[in-house]
């Protein structure tokens, strides 16, 4: 029975997707209800899995779908971390999306693909082999495209085209990489890493470049980041999910898997590949921050911030040593909850006050205090101001860099923190300390049925990011959880 639990994780969003597609618009309430219900059931299931996993049980379900290619779903500790994050944020984002769109055209399509997107993200998380990972990774690309172009205007369509071009090229490189490696060393199971010793060094390096290059597209590593700021044309709930758990995280998660579960951190270091990857990640961190400073559009600023922040994860993965690995994994969680907060707030501001540019933000704190308070927590977290979660990530990444003997990481983190302040503090200044432009009346944020769900989800994730930092040493915090995973040797 327990073998089918991983399958159930995928079935739930699939059913939710089918219901959403099939439900006529007149029954939109039922669609909303079933979406929330399925998200809740999945959260309960994840909770059950968490309890089971405490006993050290890994769930696995396998099926040979092509000769020699096993389709393996495996819920290990890292997968569970990612699944918990995505399930929790799925529920939040679903509630937010329902409030955001209210009743509009094409919502059946939207929620259908929204669920498929979550299915793919879950699949990516619990893939047991590289080829399974690839299948879900591809599905994710295809399921996200209709969301990116949801508005259907010129800008969205262009963004969608760019998105597909980038990600399909990346997928091709990634597929070439895994097939090549599989031909050389046999099945690439994350739980049972292949023996790479017979493969010539140069080939290993080439394959590594193919794999990381392919995954780097979704993780928005320089120079493959171009699609991400354009994808801002998508509606806010999509951006929120895309940036927090779905697409960019799938890329970062894949890089973690490749570095730690296919190659092994030791091998990566021996091949001399860790340092160049760390440099690439650092360059992306600084470049993304630098570009973010220049944006006047709030969502674009957040998008470049994502480019920068996701590379923290890659940086942590590429530095050898357990502390850096803790930093990478914990930032996977922290960045997710902080960034989804920021995007949901940006969406709420655009929806209620039609504020889209930084320069229009004056006095927003007085008009929508709850939203801006959530935004402030998220932004301070991104800068790394304690006690918000971002500080914990940066602390571990910095310590990891020192542990690995790469003290220059501190300079990158410091530079990034300065740039983060440069692009977030002016927003907070405008929102809280300047008087509002024009004659907006304060928005009734917490009244009016579903309307409040535009505000509350961000408040919940903001509190979560505050809690994850403030109570970082509490037994069930992301940090403690990640430390357990790393101590237990899940990452080699």
């Amino acid at each position, binding site marked *: 029975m327990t073998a089918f639990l991983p399958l159930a994780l995928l079935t739930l969003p699939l059913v939710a997707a089918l219901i959403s597609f099939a439900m006529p618009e007149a029954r939109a309430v039922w669609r909303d209800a079933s979406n929330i219900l399925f998200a809740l059931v999945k959260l309960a299931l994840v909770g059950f899995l968490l309890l089971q996993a405490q006993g050290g049980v890994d769930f696995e379900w396998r099926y040979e779908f092509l000769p020699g290619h096993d389709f393996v779903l495996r819920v290990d500790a890292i997968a569970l971390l990612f699944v918990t994050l995505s399930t929790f944020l799925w529920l939040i984002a679903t509630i937010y999306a329902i409030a955001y769109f209210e009743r509009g055209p094409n919502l059946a399509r939207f929620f259908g693909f929204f669920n498929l997107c979550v299915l793919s993200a879950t699949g990516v998380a619990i893939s047991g082999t590289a080829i399974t990972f690839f299948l879900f990774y591809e599905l994710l690309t295809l399921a996200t495209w209709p969301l990116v172009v949801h508005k259907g205007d010129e800008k969205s369509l262009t963004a969608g085209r760019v998105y597909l071009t980038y990600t399909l090229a990346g997928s091709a490189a990634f597929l070439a990489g895994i097939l090549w490696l599989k031909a050389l060393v046999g099945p690439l199971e994350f739980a049972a890493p292949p023996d790479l010793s017979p493969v010539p060094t140069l080939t290993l390096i080439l394959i590594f470049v193919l794999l990381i290059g392919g995954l780097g597209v979704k993780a928005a590593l320089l120079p493959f980041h171009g699609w991400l700021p354009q994808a801002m044309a998508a509606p806010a709930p999509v951006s929120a999910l895309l940036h927090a758990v779905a697409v960019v995280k799938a890329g970062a998660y894949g890089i973690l898997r490749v570095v730690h579960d296919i190659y092994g951190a030791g091998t990566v270091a021996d091949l001399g590949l860790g340092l160049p990857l760390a440099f690439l990640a*650092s*360059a992306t961190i*600084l470049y993304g921050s630098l570009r973010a400073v220049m944006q006047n559009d709030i969502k674009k600023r957040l998008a470049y911030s994502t480019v920068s922040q996701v590379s923290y994860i890659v940086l942590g993965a590429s530095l050898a040593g357990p502390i850096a690995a803790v930093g990478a994994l914990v930032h996977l969680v922290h960045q997710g909850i902080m960034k989804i907060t920021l995007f949901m707030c940006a969406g709420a501001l655009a929806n209620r006050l039609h504020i889209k540019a930084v320069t229009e933000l004056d006095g927003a704190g007085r008009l929508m205090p709850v939203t801006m308070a959530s935004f402030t927590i998220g932004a301070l977290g991104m800068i790394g101001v*304690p006690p918000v979660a971002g500080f914990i990530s*940066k602390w571990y990444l910095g310590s990891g860099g020192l542990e690995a003997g790469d003290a220059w990481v501190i300079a990158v983190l410091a530079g990034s923190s*300065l740039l983060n302040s440069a692009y977030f503090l002016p927003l907070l200044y405008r929102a809280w*300390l300047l008087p509002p432009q024009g004659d907006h009346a304060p928005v009734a944020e917490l009244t009016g049925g579903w309307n409040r769900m535009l505000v509350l989800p961000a408040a919940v994730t903001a509190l979560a990011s505050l809690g994850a930092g403030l109570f970082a*040493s509490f037994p069930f915090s992301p940090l403690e959880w990640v430390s357990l995973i790393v101590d237990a040797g899940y990452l080699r």
Partner: protein
Amino acid sequence: MIGIEPALLLSAAAFWPLALAMLCVLPKLGPRMITALPLAPLPALAAAIYAPSGTEFGLPWLLLDGGIRLDDTRAVFLGGAAILWTLAGLYAARYLQNDQRAAGFALFWNLVLAGNVGVFIAADAATFYVSFALVSLMAYPLVIHDRKPASLRAGAVYIVLAVIGEVALFAAFLMGSAAAGGSILIADIRDTLAGPGTDPLILWLLIAGLGIKAGLMPLHIWLPVAHPAAPIPASAVLSGAIVKAGIFGLLAFLPWGTTWPISGTTLALMGFAGLFIAALLGAAQSNPKTVLAYSTVSQMGLIMGVCGVALATGLPAAALLPILALYALHHGLTKGALFLGVGMASVWLRNSRPFFLLLMGALALSLAGLPLTAGALAKAAVKGPAGEIGAALIGFSALTSGLVLARLMFTLPSATPDKNPPPAMMFAFLALVIAALSAPFVVYGQILGTDPDPTADLAKKIVEAWPLGLAVILAAAAAAVGMQAPRMPEGDLLEPLRRTALLAMAAFHAMSDTKASSDISTETDDAPPALTNIERIQAAFADRAATAVAFALISGGLFFALI
């Protein structure tokens, strides 16, 4: 008080202001919270007095497994700050009673207070860092409280330097903690730094990060513009208590007991340079609050100069920290009282104005080190660890201190006849004057182990006070012949720096897609300067700068990876 767990009292010291801060957010209650300001520091005061030295409290699930503790030095800092915060809070409750931004003021006041208390009781680097960030960032709204263009400019300078200081501290703590084998306890980090093979870079990151807050020359440029920009009670705590967060950090983290000839001498030079230059710059100001702010830079320069000497000679902590704590206590209370006094100068009753001037004069002379005063006691103590040259410099500095404080007396605004000082403000000021003039005598025996004897060698001390006498004579002579003090711009180096920065920012904004109404123009109240030819070139370069930086990083990285 007996019966309350000391550890609980200590945690209440930090958490009580935070709780009050949360109340300030409530729409109805918020504006009224200004009257509750004097209550906020009371647990801190109680902890400083009643909690025994060595009280510790672990907060194992907070942050990175943090904790708080109290010892004698910390108690002096905590107690001094709590007295000042209480009385300044009382003053503020009346001063800002009808202010339209009272709720915001109360909120940030409480947050800064919580941070300030946290700095003094943090047992680990993470708690210290959180508290320090709270102090640094939340003081910004206090600085720009009146939203005047000058305040906004001062705030911009302040926040930029504060963030740079935060980042420097973050790097220092990371490296220090890594060197200490992952421990984040302040004691462990300090002991590791005192061990062999410590990277001076850590030391200097600490000095930079903490020195910015403490006004170490030349990182002081924010201080003479930011402290006067805030409302009077906020200026008092900024200059009296908040700069002490930087000083306390230096005392807590620097590796006392090991010799650092080069770093120590450099720090001593910077400190003593500040002692004299800032005092002279202050004597050339016309705003009494700016004069006082420069005097703060000067006095903190003295403390950091002594720190430098102690580092250079390898003086142990026990011989240094209590003395500097005493000096900081005296300066904090006196400077706070002087600021409150400046705020009252125009509303003090006409007929008792001589009494008011007498009080201000007494504070000023005490600060300059007149024999028999509390200031002389602190100054005599601080000469001990300062070494021969340092002691001579400190003795001579009474001249410049005297000049800057004489300047203060001449810049005080005159009384307006139809106003009376509100009793609450009067009480706060008088209480703080008494505290400032007596506190060093009260705690002297407890923290230095010997009883104060201000009358010993009195004749010698009076002779040694000649620089102060000279200052008084000079000031009196200048006043008699009607000589005008020279004028220096507030923030000395700031103006040239600001012009350069504005130029750079204009170029930077030219490349962003920000429209004409850019961030800069609203933040500094300057129209965006029209682009000159040079700026166009800069902008054109900057357009490609981001790409160029990225490519340089990548290619550099790959290059180094290959070799």
